[in-house]
């Protein structure tokens, strides 16, 4: 797997560039790391489950990347983890490399397209999940604004929903 910056050497570092907002995962060879990231201490990510963090760049053998190399865009270096983190594609090529991931993102929204109406249809579970999220938000807002009577009502509704589910 070649370094996306120089396209010459093998990848040596895989880490999260926390100097960027939102942070994203960077792959780099030794030389490019010194040039571009010499002054930062990134948090490392290993691209196989379980994902773990460390405070220094994680040194891994490039051969370890072989089995997941297909999940890294060969043009811009975007990985599956990047897309899971922030739903952002890196380039046009990503849409070909991660064609399966687009389906993953769609599934992740817990929605299916109703081909007749061109709109998505929520299942009962989705409805309960959305209601719970909305109610929890409302509860926080009501407490923050010291509307305790309303907060009590929302709390009761939440409890009722939880009991139902």
């Amino acid at each position, binding site marked *: 797997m070649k370094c996306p910056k120089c396209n010459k050497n093998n990848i040596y570092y895989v880490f999260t560039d926390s100097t*960027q*907002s*939102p942070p*994203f995962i960077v792959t780099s060879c030794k030389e490019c790391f010194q040039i571009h990231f010499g002054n930062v201490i990134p948090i490392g990510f290993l691209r196989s489950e379980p994902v773990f963090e460390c405070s220094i760049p994680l040194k891994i053998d490039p051969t370890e990347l072989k089995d997941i190399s297909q999940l890294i865009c060969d*043009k*811009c*270096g*975007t990985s599956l983890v990047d*897309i899971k983190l922030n*739903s*952002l*594609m*890196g*380039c*046009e090529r990503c*849409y*070909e490399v991660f*064609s399966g*991931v*687009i389906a993953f*993102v*769609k599934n992740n*929204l817990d*929605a299916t*397209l*109703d081909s007749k*109406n*061109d*709109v*998505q*249809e*929520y299942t009962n579970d989705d*409805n309960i999940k*959305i*209601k719970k*999220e*909305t*109610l929890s*938000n*409302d509860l926080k*807002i009501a407490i923050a604004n010291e509307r305790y009577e*309303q907060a009590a009502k929302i709390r009761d*509704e939440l409890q009722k929903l939880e009991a139902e589910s």
Partner: protein
Amino acid sequence: MKKLLVDQILNVNPSFANWIDPCIMSNSISIHRNLSGHNFVHRSSIDDNREVCSKIMGILQSNSFFDDYMFEYLSEINPYLINVLYEEKLFHFYSSDYVNNLKILKNSGTVVIINQTKDILIEINNIDHLTVTAFSNKNNLSELYHTAIDVVNNITTNYAYNDKNKFLTSNVDLHGIGMSYSGLLHLPGIAIHSAFQDVNSKLQSFNYNIAGFFGYKSDFINDFYTFNSIASYLYKNADSFLSIFEEATYIIMELEKYYRENIEDYVKKDLIYKAYGLSKYGYNTSFFDACSSLSCLKWGIDEDIIKNVSKENLAKSFVNCFPAHVQFISSCDLDEIDKYRASLIRKGMKK
């Protein structure tokens, strides 16, 4: 194209200042496009982004269609003004991460371009290479879409496109038709009745694809709510997308009308006149209080209860009460913002 002047940023959008419908403050349709052959903004180097920027700027400057437009590079704007721009966008925009992103974008050749009437905004290198947003105070999204697409059609270049996924955007949710919708609605009736649960469930039963309602992944201020589209890839074409959101907005407007009619007259007048008093005679007004009282005043003007405050002045006060605006206009310290905000609102309380 001309350089954007500070005064022009601070001028309130005329359509915003003369609202037609009591509920709709602003509707916007954004069209997202990326240039073919370049990495997307967050994945390319500063030099690449600058190259994209100069390419698009070259196209804009060579087309007479954009003669009346005004531009400004983000790197040349002072930090206060960046926050002011963000607040202007708060009325239409969908991301609260915008200010954080600006720190990165500033070095990436990001340009903000607006037209004379401030109802079209073109952004270069903001998440996508090109984002064209059209604003309106009407619930006519087809008209809004045609305004935006007209601008995009005048920028003739090769966009990132493939037959399977259509227009390719940075945000995976927006590929396909490459569009997003955002609306700012004024809903005091629903807020007073705490009826957001009913509204939400009613809209769900219509199978609408809606997020950003009542603080769900959205910015909200008292009675003002942003209402956003997600996952535009679900729609086959622009028409189906537009008709869904047009109808959704219409349903919310009808519900708001119903809830407003169900408020006792004395409750309504009490709220409106108290807000009038606070705005006219207040000397220390927090942002929260300002939004509450200006919301009630707007309601009073819509109901013809308040007659001696003009729509334009109220809209101006509403925009100016935001923290960066107060700080920019009055050059005051952070701890004096509430004092200056009150004085700005007092000045606006006239016909």
